[in-house]
């Protein structure tokens, strides 16, 4: 089951910037081999943290303006948002559960400490 909803330019504000809790956004494209390699890991991580954090995706092949607005240079890039602000990002994490989990959760833990 796909747990990761796709955000578009039309829904980005509602789903990401005005979201209640922490949101991790994966900027990806279906033609990117690295995104393919990491996809099952991202699904697994999204499932394991679903109770405290939401994972969304933005397809940069369609949403080029969003990718440019958030200075996405490579795919996959994870950008973490809290209260409408970027609190961290990770470019091309290793396709391992621990690596992706750390990438999408650590920035929120750090933001909570600050």
């Amino acid at each position, binding site marked *: 089951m796909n747990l990761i909803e796709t955000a578009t330019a039309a829904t980005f504000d509602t789903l990401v910037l005005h979201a209640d809790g922490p949101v991790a956004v994966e900027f990806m*494209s*279906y*033609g*990117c*081999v*690295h995104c*393919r390699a990491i*996809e099952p890991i991202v699904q697994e991580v999204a499932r394991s943290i679903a109770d405290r954090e939401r994972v969304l995706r933005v*397809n940069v*092949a*369609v949403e080029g303006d969003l990718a440019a607005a958030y200075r996405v240079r490579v795919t996959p890039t994870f950008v973490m948002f809290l209260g409408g602000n970027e609190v961290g990002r990770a470019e091309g994490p290793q396709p391992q559960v621990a690596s992706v989990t750390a990438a999408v959760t650590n920035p929120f833990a750090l933001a909570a400490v600050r």
Partner: protein
Amino acid sequence: MQPAAPLPILLYNGECAVCIRVAAWVRASEPGTPVIDVRPIGDDPEAIAQLHPGLDIWDAYETVHLLMPDGSMKTGGAAVAEVLRRLPNTRWSSGLLNAHVGGIRPAAALVDLGYNVLADVRPLLGCASCGSTNAAVRSVHETLDWLGRTLRAERRALVPPFRSASRHVPRLKQKTPV
């Protein structure tokens, strides 16, 4: 009037320069009534799943797919061979591609090999989304690149000296310190 028979659908990676050129060649090779419906894979997983229930958008980007009107699916070299069998300009190859020698089909195997080599070198030919090519291909490419640079340097060294000496090189003006 009978409705037109459904065409095989050739799905190609619209983010890959090599695939775009191949798709353009296929389109150009059917000047009359199209025999193949050539489409970019696009970005909608649901639209791809609707084309064929067994097809996932990630798989579609992994290798070339030809969706046959009977519901079957050909991939990789088999898809390329089927396209060659159907295009008017390459239909002649059909017999060759189907010919068996000692239990194998040599021409079909060669097409398969050719497809796999091309798929491997796509990143070197302008497909940023196709990942990094494998180490063997990369080392061949680097060797050829080195050879090209060396030959160019050798050629420059062989140019007679009077040629460069005959050029007028203007003296640069001294910059005025601020």
